[in-house]
């Protein structure tokens, strides 16, 4: 039997005959818009743009029931949570940042291979051979830092507004997991450029793994994490996979659990707006409702635009992601630090407990019982994390009012202060113990950029001012047309002459031109050798003996170091 269309066949021609072409175009456009928006017809879009109130029944809630993307979003918010306070939009910003990181990250992935043989070279290619490569890298890096900041602040805000309390304990717990994932996501990416900075920061950051008790387990944990006793090809591949697949997937998944709970319970109202013990977030009186479409949607779009502007303008004009020398497992930079958000751990590893005992003149516990690395580096952070996870379930104070939560608020502030202090203790500014001569050389010409001294003073001298010759700090006669050189020599003189650990210290500086456009800069430090009674050591002729330390670097005309 022949297949037949039912009569009459609706053809475009017939439609036009029936309604006229203007109306037909409108009908088809209307249908298209309604489908794309999952339920809002064209006339309604016009109403929205004109700022008119919705008709009843309200077609603007359709996308929340019909559409996939918006089905997780509430169709209205309580008017009290649509201002900056109490959310500060930090959760939203965290999520946006995650999206931006995904996009810029995929761009970078195109040009990157996770192998120690080529990873660093790939980074150089991204910077000198890929259009927009540097911008993308800078946005990715700036976004990563911003995401860590945003997530931490978001956690603080939910703590201070007591949004973690019943019934939102589980939301908080998933949040803690998100925090951990965010930190590890950022940290795993840190290794990928495979330069000295990343290699040693991650070496420091993973050095606790080995201290996981008992020792047999520690060895295994370390092997699983680094892929070998030390970070190498296997470790790089592992960190890469963690960074581009494993952690993002997990974070994405946990985020939806988190956000589902947020919507289920409703955004908590500012504490002072509810009676103690009440949770009225879901009982929004009609006159307090602010519809998601269009009000909140526009707000969120504006925040997105602001965030992108911040990242793009920031990356283009104010921020450069660092790239140091190629990773060198045989050469540890003097002041190695973990990334800033793990400095508190590095601070813990300097062990405040032992430092306090020393201060008080009390004996240290024997190392057989007390191992800093295990206790401060693994057990204590583990306990802190566990405490954060279950904290809402231990809080029996039902009131969310600030005035009823004095102890909790003080505890929160003390926590922030302790974190800040430990972070400071983690920097090399606190309790570094290298010898004075090494510190001087580091300050003036570190072999790798130093967290305290940057590229060092010597590299701030413009190339033309590096006048070849020999300079002696005991009798400085720098050339007249090299003011910056003169200043650095003056600073060097001051530095060696005033350091109490360099008695009668002086420095000899040799500058020589070794190739066209290449100069060698050498500093030789000499200082009096003292015996254990702080008396000068003398040779057979009775002349005082001097100790010596020296270092040379090369400076090329083109390798501008930022300088002054």
């Amino acid at each position: 039997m022949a297949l037949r269309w039912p009569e009459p066949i609706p053809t475009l021609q017939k439609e036009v005959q029936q309604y006229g072409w203007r109306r037909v175009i409108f009908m088809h456009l209307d249908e298209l818009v309604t489908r794309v928006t999952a339920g809002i017809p064209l006339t309604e879009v016009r109403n929205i743009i004109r700022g008119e109130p919705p008709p009843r029944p309200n077609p603007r809630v359709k996308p929340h029931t019909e559409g996939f993307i918006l089905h997780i979003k509430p169709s209205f918010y309580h008017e009290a949570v649509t201002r900056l306070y109490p959310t500060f939009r930090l959760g939203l910003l965290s999520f946006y940042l995650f999206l931006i990181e995904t996009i810029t990250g995929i761009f970078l992935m195109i040009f990157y291979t996770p192998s120690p043989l080529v990873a660093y070279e790939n980074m150089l290619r991204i910077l000198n051979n890929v259009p927009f490569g540097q911008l993308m890298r800078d946005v990715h890096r700036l976004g990563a830092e911003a995401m860590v900041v945003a997530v931490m602040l978001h956690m603080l805000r939910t703590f201070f507004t007591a949004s973690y309390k019943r019934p939102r304990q589980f939301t908080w717990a998933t949040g803690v997991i998100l925090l951990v994932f965010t930190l590890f996501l950022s940290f795993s990416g840190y290794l990928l450029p495979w330069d000295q900075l990343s290699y040693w920061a991650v070496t420091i950051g993973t050095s606790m793994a080995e201290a996981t008790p008992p020792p047999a387990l520690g060895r295994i944990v370390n092997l699983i994490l680094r892929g070998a006793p030390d970070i190498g090809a296997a470790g790089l591949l592992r960190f890469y996979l963690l960074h581009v697949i494993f952690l993002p997937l997990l974070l994405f998944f946990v985020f939806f659990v988190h956000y589902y709970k947020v919507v289920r319970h409703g955004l908590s109202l500012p504490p002072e707006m509810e009676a103690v013990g009440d949770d009225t977030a879901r009982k929004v009186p009609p006159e307090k409702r602010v519809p998601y479409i269009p009000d909140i949607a526009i707000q969120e779009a504006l925040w997105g635009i602001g965030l992108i502007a911040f990242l793009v303008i920031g990356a283009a004009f104010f921020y450069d992601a660092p790239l140091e020398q190629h990773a060198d497992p045989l050469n540890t930079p003097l002041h190695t630090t973990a990334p800033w958000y793990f400095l508190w751990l590095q601070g813990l590893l300097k062990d405040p407990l032992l430092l306090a005992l020393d201060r008080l003149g009390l004996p240290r516990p024997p190392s057989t019982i007390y191992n800093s690395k295990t206790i401060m580096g693994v057990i204590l952070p583990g306990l802190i994390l566990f405490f954060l996870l279950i904290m809402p379930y231990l809080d029996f104070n039902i009131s969310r009012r600030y005035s009823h939560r004095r102890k909790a608020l003080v505890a929160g502030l003390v926590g922030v202060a302790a974190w800040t202090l430990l972070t400071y203790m983690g920097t090399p500014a606190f309790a570094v113990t290298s010898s004075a001569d090494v510190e001087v050389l580091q300050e003036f010409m570190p072999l790798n950029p130093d967290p305290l001294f940057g590229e060092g003073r010597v590299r701030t001298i413009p190339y033309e001012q590096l006048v070849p010759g020999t300079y002696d700090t005991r009798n400085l006669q720098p050339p007249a047309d090299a003011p910056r050189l003169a200043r650095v020599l003056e600073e060097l003189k001051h530095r060696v002459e005033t350091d109490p650990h360099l008695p009668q210290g002086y420095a000899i500086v040799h500058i020589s031109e070794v190739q066209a456009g290449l100069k060698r800069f050498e500093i030789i430090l000499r200082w009096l050798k003292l015996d254990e009674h702080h008396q000068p050591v003398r040779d057979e002729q009775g002349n005082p003996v001097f100790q010596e330390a020296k270092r040379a670097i090369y400076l090329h005309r083109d390798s501008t170091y930022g300088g002054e």
Partner: protein
Amino acid sequence: MFDLATRRIIGATVLMLATVITIGMVWLTEEQRMARYEAIHKGKAIENGALLYEQYCATCHGPNGEGVPGKGPDLNPGVFQHYQELKQTQNYANSLRNFIKLTIAAGRPIRSTYRANEVYADPMPTWSQDFGGPLRPDQIENLVEFILNWQAAGPTPAPTPSFEAVGTDLTKPLPPGDPKRGEALWNQEVKQASGAAASCKACHSLKPGEVLVGPSLAGIATRAAERIRAPDYKGQAKTPEEYIRESIQQPNAYIVEPDKYAAAPGVSKMPATLGNQMSAQDLADLIAFLMTLK
């Protein structure tokens, strides 16, 4: 003036425009930026290469690529000449860069015909980790950049002699002096370690009583012995030699006839930087020569 919604929309439009303009600016300057980055990085590669060269290569090829007899041939201009020779006589088909890179990475297991009449104790070892050496591929690249730079950057400057100047240090032990060489230094027939001629005779005559800028040095050996016994002498010298040494390295320690020879109170007309040009040997030789002027 405007309501909140309008203000927000204006703000967002401005931000969006700013973002687009920023991206446009990046776009327009991208070529230059990439070229600049490349140049900066090449400069750093040469710096790294120079450090590696100093650490690993200089013992056999000399600090300035001039070669070390019995250990290794000169590289500057050796490599460049050798490469040309191979190209012309053997149709060697690789690039100069690869010629250098391969030699460093894999070493020279057998003696090449270049500088064939010279004898070297050991063959050139392999340097790349690929062939069991100590260096990573990126380090080999850096070395290649450094070596190429001997010619790429134009003629090599006359090496700034790297020597230990005596400066103003009076405690540094001096080697035995050679009056003959000291005299040659005085007459500017040989150069000081810095490469510059000694400037003494520009200001000091050896004719008795002739004052140029400073006093004549005729009979200085005898006079030095008297000076250190003079009541107003406040320097540290105990012997005539030490007195001459102090006068050269620290002219301000004691100024004879200040109204004649001081440029300012306490500052001698004689420059205090002469020691920066001299090695310990130069100084010892000059002193030895001056000590012959009884």
